């Protein structure tokens, strides 16, 4: 299947249980899709974790992955936020070679990029930068000639702008899993479906 690939970002809420990450990663692996970045962390609610998964895949593939992630029992919600307006951030720590001669210029770049120096040693310094991916790329590009010793990046975290959220609706009281919901909410969920048809 030849599809134009594009960076897709999924926000997934999951139960914080052993093996959940494996189940989700497995859906990408079995289809031969590479995960560019994946972050997991606690949320404001106990026992619920939030993942941000970034993968370069086609539109139809993204739709299939989303639908299959949703089928996992431990998944509370999944949303492909690629087409939504979002804030995306990641953090990088970059250890760069720094001599007496180059340190000054490095500090100048750090100031321009609104990054921070978090460690300073005789021959190196560690720069911390937070921002969108392209900003981090740009800093890495200008640092490269100085000699990057080591770099670590967190992967992206993404949140929708404005009041709209990706937070799953939780069952109230003792609702059974099979209880059916109909009405406007169900059909709007279905409208999202129709907006992203597979491009097979």
């Amino acid at each position, binding site marked *: 299947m030849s599809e134009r690939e594009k960076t897709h970002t999924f926000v997934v809420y999951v*139960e914080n249980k*052993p*093996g959940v990450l*494996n*189940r989700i990663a*497995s859906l990408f692996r*079995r289809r031969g899709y590479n995960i560019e970045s994946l972050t997991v962390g606690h949320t404001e609610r106990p026992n619920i974790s939030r993942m941000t998964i970034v993968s370069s895949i086609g539109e*139809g593939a993204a*739709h*299939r992955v989303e*639908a*299959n992630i*949703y*089928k*996992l*029992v431990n*998944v*509370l*919600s999944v949303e492909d936020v690629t087409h939504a307006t979002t804030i995306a951030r990641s953090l990088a720590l970059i250890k760069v070679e720094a001599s007496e001669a180059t340190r000054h210029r490095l500090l100048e770049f750090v100031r321009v990029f609104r990054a921070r120096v978090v460690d300073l040693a005789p021959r190196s310094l560690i720069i911390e930068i937070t921002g969108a991916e392209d900003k981090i790329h740009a800093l890495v590009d200008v640092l490269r000639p100085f000699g990057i010793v080591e770099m670590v990046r967190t992967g992206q975290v993404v949140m929708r702008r404005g009041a709209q959220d990706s937070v*799953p*609706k*939780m*069952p109230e009281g*003792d*609702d*059974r*899993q*099979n*209880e*059916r*919901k*109909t009405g406007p*909410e*169900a*059909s709007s*969920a*279905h409208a999202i*479906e*129709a907006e992203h*048809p*597979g491009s*097979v």
Partner: protein
Amino acid sequence: MNDKARFDAPDAPRKMTGAEIIWECLERLGVEYVFGYPGGAILPTYDALTKSRVHHVLVRHEQGATHMADGYARASGRVGVALATSGPGATNMVTGIATAMMDSSPIVCITGQVGSSVLGSDAFQEVDITGITIPITKHNYLVTRADEVGPSLREAFEIAAADRPGPVLVDVTKDAQLSTCEFDWDAAAPRAHRQVPVFFPSAAELNDAAALINESRRPVILAGHGIILSGAGEEVRRLAETADIPVALTLLGLGAFPASHALNLGMMGMHGEAWVNQAIQESDLLIALGMRFDDRVTGKLNTYAQKARKIHIEIDRAEINKNVKADVPLIGDLREVLQRLLPLVNPNRHSEWWSQIHLSKKDSAVRDIQNLPDNGHLYAAHVINDLWRETKGDAVIVTDVGQHQMWEAQYYHHEKPRSLITSGGLGTMGFALPAGIGAKFARPDAEVWVVVGDGGFQMTMAELATIVQEKINVKIAIINNGYLGMVRQWQEFFYEGRYAGTPLLSPDFVKLAEAYGIPGLMVTQRSQVIPSLNTARFHAGPALIDFRVEQEDSVYPMVPAGADLHAMIRRPTPLVERPTDE
């Protein structure tokens, strides 16, 4: 604990071991049979079996246990249960679990696991079965504490049967089976942990679908397994009859719509009749009901039903637009969706469309091997067709995979749901015999025939002993052509007849059956087929017939894999005869 105490105060929490909780839950869930094989890590559970009313069926290989549970589930619509030990016991289940996954069959597999303190240490008979089965189960559980046994098992049963059914595995460590806890059935009830939005079609979407149906001049219903799973046979019949729509069936859909119904076209796909595939290719509207546009059904996707709009009614959202783009997807339980759709569908007649379809049958009848005079050769098609005639289409037929499976689909005409049990998606050889045993447990009053090739039979024939030990009355028809027939056919068609690894030596199946105490017959002539079938049918117990059929016959018509659906290889006329080795 005696039965009286158990049922006088069923809801009071009681101290029980994890092993006892397993049986308690199975009983309360209405499980009658468990297909299993004991071993070290599941021993505490087997020990507790002695106090349970559940009937345990000892299999000869754990793959057989999963296929039996699967056959039981498909024949009854209820959840089938298989039980095995850790390590090799668990890995032997993998094929059966994958089979159930591909064909949406609800089974729960319970495996023993090494003690939780040694998990991950490569202990004796330890294998990461929950890791292995992630891609082939709807869900699985690693249970390390007795108090997790009840909730996990109850949820497993619910998940297996819900929505699109499938297999669930529950892996229970030995210490979880041995230790005790207060067990409370009600407290172990599955709890909603997420608000499940049901993607039920809106009125507008239903109207869109109805408009397409009402406007269509050349509609075809594609009837799949979902009709049987949803119990929507009646709704499908009403839809077809109201709007005069031809019905084509998938392999797993056979039985969902009566074969004798005037609107039934037959099976679609790779070995479907030519006119069925022709109708799909010429159609202006495909109404896909509980099917998933498998590659064996569509052929080449780029040329598949190009003139047709598509309505896809399906409970699994992940199937929508997976292979074929749907113009109107309706997500939900098929029966419920059809009940809402039916009032919007106008009565209609499509006589022009029907004459076009009838015209496309052309010389099909001449090419049908069924209509050839007896030339002394025995064809599998004869055997299957005679079996259909003699059982009046009333038997439950359980097939294996390969040529005989396709001939069964072509020549046994299924009137009722759950009368054909076959491994479709995974194409698992060795499925038939154990699945047939499971089906017989589910439907003790039904006449159950295992139709199996000489290759597939030898994969799981050890279960003959299970038949005898359990005194199970299944009849076995071996379609014996001395080859792995379907592979041989592909070698003939696509590899210039180089028969690598397909000529197959078999034991004397009649003597083999007799060694197990099962009467056996061998048949080489067409005239012997009906007498032998009736000898087997009226024998009060299991029986086996070894049908020595034409060795190098092929299944026609055939759409080569990945080819256009309308590009079919037809049976040559006149029939090419080859001498047999007999």
